[in-house]
């Protein structure tokens, strides 16, 4: 059964289509990342699924219910971590979680939630004294304390330092392994790559790709050789196969090819003949970032892409 079914969902603000005929389904237990640049419509899509915004047209069903008509019983089955919210500063983390736990029919024990989000050591600290990363994890703790079937996370790690991001990721992964469906928005490609088994790419309110990290990477085009040469390198003697890829202005070479074996062999042979040290040489697979940028720049003919 699908946890979420979205069909031609559209939201207009005046003349602007913030979300433009978006359709997708999320099966139970999946961890989906909705990825896109600022203004792509990620938050607006999420707010319609959370019941805070009525769509201009189209339909959404979350756990079989129209979110805009969801009652508190329905809301108790979903967990939300919104962008830029905040918490009362006066109480301790433990007391705050206990208060929120009281809103649900079958809350997770506070101690279990503290462990899930790695806040056991901060349980007796007042919320107002916590760092940004710790507060974000309290936010996640509140999102999951009601044992939600679906957790919506809107840019859960924006503004966190790398260690805090890793901890937040672990919390989300822990939750997903317990069977919770997770939908998160992010503009961090590495976050989506690390966490999600499915990527929905939004640009200008439309889905431009509905894929997996592996498939997106595979569509990222050819592998790449990059090298910046020192001044005085005998660039005039570069093999013809490489010379056409040389930027003579800044002495750098960028070769993109499906098979980089031949140009790499030519480059190494040329360097060997001239006893050059290729200290700046980079050889890389197609990057997810390149594939992402290509996808949001123009619609891709990706498997599963929705027009």
């Amino acid at each position, binding site marked *: 059964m699908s946890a979420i079914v979205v069909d031609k969902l559209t939201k207009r603000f005046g003349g602007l289509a913030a979300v433009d005929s978006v359709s997708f389904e999320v099966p139970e237990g999946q961890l989906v990342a909705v990825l896109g640049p600022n203004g792509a419509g990620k938050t607006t899509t999420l707010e319609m699924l959370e019941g805070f915004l009525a769509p201009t047209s189209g339909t959404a069903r979350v756990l079989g219910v129209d979110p805009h008509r969801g009652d508190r*019983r329905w809301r*108790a*089955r979903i967990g939300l971590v*919104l962008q830029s919210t905040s918490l009362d500063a006066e*109480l301790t983390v433990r007391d705050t979680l206990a*208060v929120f736990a*009281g*809103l*649900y029919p079958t809350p*997770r024990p506070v101690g279990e939630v503290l462990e899930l989000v790695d806040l056991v050591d901060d349980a007796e600290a007042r919320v107002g004294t916590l760092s940004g990363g710790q507060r974000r994890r309290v936010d996640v703790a509140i999102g999951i304390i009601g044992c939600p079937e679906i957790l919506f996370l809107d840019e859960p790690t924006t503004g966190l330092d790398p260690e805090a991001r890793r901890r937040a990721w672990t919390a989300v992964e822990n939750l997903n392994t317990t069977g919770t469906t997770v939908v998160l928005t992010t503009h961090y490609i590495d976050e989506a790559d690390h966490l999600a088994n499915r990527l929905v790419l939004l640009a200008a309110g439309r889905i431009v790709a509905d894929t997996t990290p592996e498939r997106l990477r595979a569509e990222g085009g050819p592998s790449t050789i990059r090298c910046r040469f020192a001044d005085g390198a005998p660039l005039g003697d570069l093999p013809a196969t490489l010379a056409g890829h040389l930027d003579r202005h800044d002495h750098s070479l960028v070769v993109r090819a499906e098979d980089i074996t031949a140009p790499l062999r030519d480059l190494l042979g040329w360097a060997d003949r001239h006893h050059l040290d290729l200290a700046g040489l980079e050889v890389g697979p197609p990057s997810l970032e390149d594939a992402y940028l290509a996808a949001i720049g123009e619609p891709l003919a990706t498997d599963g892409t929705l027009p």
Partner: protein
Amino acid sequence: MTDTTRATSARMPSIGRLLAAQVSYQARLLASGRAITIGVGLPVILLIASHGQDTHTDATVIAGYAAFGLTLTAWNTYGVRLVAAREAGVLKRWRATPLPHSCYFLGRILATVVVAVAAGAATVAAGVLLYGLHLTVSGALVALVAFVLGAFAWAAAATALTAVIPTLEAAAPTLMLTYFPVIIISGIFGAISEPHWLSTIASYLPAQPLVHALAISLGHTAGHALLSARDLLVLAAWALAGLAAAIATFRWEPHRPTQQRPAQTSRRQ
């Protein structure tokens, strides 16, 4: 049994339980903040400063300072805290939970009523202990009714007003500007000479009826009037109208726009 099936088959907490928990939570927040001390402390300090060596003070004076403490708490302290919570995103966080929206802001209002009544009671206690105020049991009970109605009226009206206050910086000036003229013309610090039409207006605002109702009940002696039904009715009308306006205009989202799109005004579900 999985977590999911447990969640769907279990009973939701009752509205009464949720409201009681919310009142208790909000009262804890109020009690742990320093802002509340002004409503309790300032009227007592002003009373002592202006009547230091007196051994007896008229019930009308005590009623005025008690109403001052109560309204400071239920209007200014409450209003500023509500705008601060909204602009910081605290209200948005609560809206994302299954707590019925009415429980949230009724919880805030009722917790404020409890603390505002305590602020008023502190001044009355000072009047009894220091200035020979003779409080009868029936007078105290009627005063309590006036306190509760008055605090609810001011807090509900403040809730409605906060919908048009765009920033935290604008909160204190807007609340003060709508507060001091009303309490001055209502004679909270003593009767002032004013045109008849102004006292007529004041008699329909929530301060003057509060002071008047308190003065009668606090000064009650055998053979004299105990309550002023007209004053209590005005306060009750303000409480109901304020609540209706608050429900119609309550904002959950901060005013500052998010991602260049219109901020949403949300009503309770």
